[in-house]
């Protein structure tokens, strides 16, 4: 227990350091560059940050459930790409280039269903056939990077879709998907820490033999969490697309590393859904800083500012790499008969 207390202390210290650095940065901008801070941090910035954070938070929650149960799903990025593409493809199939809001919701559901089905195959490879989790996860990324732009080219004759439509805002200028994510974060927390099933998940990753002895099938728990992680990553991709309004399949696609950042978000949040969502918000805000810089008139290349989340990930991981990883992540479980 003292280990986790030590980690909590380290986490608070890191959180403190982050705040100090941010305050110092704000001071430098305000004094050195004569920047009006009230124009830098606006309601629009909050909205954009939340929009950017939601896909990351959703994928992160899925990923942390899988890892809590002892399976490292590093295919999140790939499943997000597939989710984003499926949403765009379904929207286009239903409503052409001017889909309605109903089509958007239907497309999101289809995307979740498709990624769920694909994740079942992935889960069978990982659990039944004991595939190398790291290599297979990378493969999912490659499959997404290849087949999503391929299918896009088949449909639209180009790797990217034409403009489709965004999801309408619900209240306070926020999309309903932001509220949905907030609800899901809360539910994920309660489920993991306050229900019997949540304890099963934790036991599957910490002490699978004990869980087995208690009469719970370890691999069934793991199937459930891995499939859930794929579904959540697919939902994350769908949400990303519903906020963006069109699919981009060039380069590393519109997902552009967010699945990887999701992994860092839950590591940073110490496998706690609320912590992971908070970390996602931090990365989302960093991602949107370039828009703010432009409006305030700070001349920095957008391309450089866009690298900030990646740099932040490096700093976070290095300053704070020692997470309490579940005991048996990556090891297939063999029932002893």
């Amino acid at each position, binding site marked *: 227990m003292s280990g986790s207390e030590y980690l909590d202390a380290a986490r608070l210290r890191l959180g403190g350091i982050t705040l100090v650095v941010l305050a110092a940065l704000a001071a430098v901008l305000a004094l050195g560059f004569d920047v009006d801070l009230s124009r830098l941090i606006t309601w629009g910035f909050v909205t954009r940050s939340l929009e950017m954070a939601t896909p990351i938070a959703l994928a992160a929650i899925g990923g942390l459930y899988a890892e809590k149960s002892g399976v490292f799903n590093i295919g999140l990025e790939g499943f997000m790409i597939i989710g984003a593409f499926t949403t765009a493809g379904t929207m286009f199939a239903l409503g052409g280039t001017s889909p309605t809001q109903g089509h958007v919701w239907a497309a999101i559901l289809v995307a979740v269903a498709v990624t769920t089905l694909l994740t079942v195959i992935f889960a069978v490879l990982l659990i039944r056939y004991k595939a190398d989790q790291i290599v297979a996860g990378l493969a999912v990324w490659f*499959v997404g990077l290849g087949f999503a732009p391929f299918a896009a080219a088949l449909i639209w004759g180009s790797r990217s879709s034409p403009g489709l439509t965004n999801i309408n805002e619900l209240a306070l200028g926020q999309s309903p998907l932001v509220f949905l994510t907030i609800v899901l974060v809360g539910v994920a927390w309660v489920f993991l820490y306050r229900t019997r099933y949540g304890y099963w998940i934790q036991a599957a990753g910490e002490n699978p033999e004990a869980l087995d002895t208690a009469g719970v099938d370890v691999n069934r728990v793991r199937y459930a969490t891995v499939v859930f992680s794929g579904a959540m990553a697919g939902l994350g991709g769908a949400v990303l697309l519903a906020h963006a309004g069109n699919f981009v399949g060039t380069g590393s696609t519109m997902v552009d590393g967010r699945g990887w950042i999701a992994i860092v978000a839950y590591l940073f949040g110490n496998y706690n859904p609320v912590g992971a969502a908070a970390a996602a918000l931090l990365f989302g805000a960093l991602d949107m800083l370039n828009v703010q810089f432009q409006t305030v008139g700070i001349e920095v290349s957008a391309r450089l500012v866009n690298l900030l989340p990646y740099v932040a990930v490096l700093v976070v991981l290095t300053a704070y*790499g020692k997470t309490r990883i579940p005991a048996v992540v990556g090891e297939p479980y063999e029932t002893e008969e």
Partner: protein
Amino acid sequence: MSGSETGSDGGALGALAARLLDASVLERIGIGIASTALALLIGLVIAAAAGYDSIRFANQLLVGAFGSERAIARTLRSTTIFVMTGVAVAVAFRAGVFNIGVQGQFVVGGFSTVVSIVWLGAFVPSGAVGGIVLMLFGTAVGVVAGGLYGALPGVMKAYGDANEIITTIMLNFIATGFVGWLVAGPFGAPEATATRTRRLPESVGLPQVVFGDPNLSIVGILLMLGVVALIAVIMTRTRFGYDMVTSGYQDTAATYSGVDAKRMVISTMALSGMVAGLTGALFVIMIQGYYTDPSGIGNYGFDAIAVSLLAANNPVGVLPAGLLFGGLESAGSHVQINSDIPVQLIDGIVGLVVLFVAAPELFRMIAARTGLGGDAE
């Protein structure tokens, strides 16, 4: 189903683990071929489902890879890059370090080579000797830059416990974005309409012997073979290589035998990055002649992971695996011109190859069921 399961799993757990580790060379080759065949088959089915003639597609793949002298030269050109980046990955994976950052190290190495040659080119007389001096200097800079960029995540892992899979992926994004910014801005060629650096001087270039292709030199192929041989010797015949491979299999054993785990991680990553940087240097000197936005340069460093895995992370095995990928890439450029099938299909097929390589148990099961495996217990 459960009947056959208890039959084959009857042995102890340890036996299974041992079998996984000591999978015979023959079995690995079998798994590699089976993975590739299955992935290609699925690719053909997808092509057919998308409304294309799969027989024609298969034929185009073959013609595009090996159908003419030009195609063969194109295949070999890509093969040199895939084999060398594949060796870079294999070095790290064998040591149990997941360097996913070969792409970034390749980009940083290649870009540094161009910048250093262009800079030094102003002081060195043009001519054959000057050209050789420039190439050696630029290559050295590329190797060092790639090595440092590889060592960075090694240091982060050794001293900050940062997971190298994630740090190297982040460093890939950073290398692409930062070099892309440098190429567009500070190091952009003022006279060029496209986004690129200045060209390398005329004197820089490898001799064209044997092959007529201007972007393929026998020197490049010899360099590739040299790197494969050197790494294979380091891994099997030196103390350093022995320690490295031991760390990969059993890090506690390595620690007990006196290996400094932190230093091992850093030097492994540095060596891997150096090979990637060398590949970047060869890429710019032999093929490109300048640097462009790295987001459009090709995913050599990513596909290299597939190459290495297909070769079971064996530096010599990387040769046939790299040839397969060189062939696929070459076929891709043929398909792009001569067919209306979106060429991304080939990237997807590559992804499937990796997926199947990750699950050898799948093929062991198939082999056992169909009786092809023979003595698979």
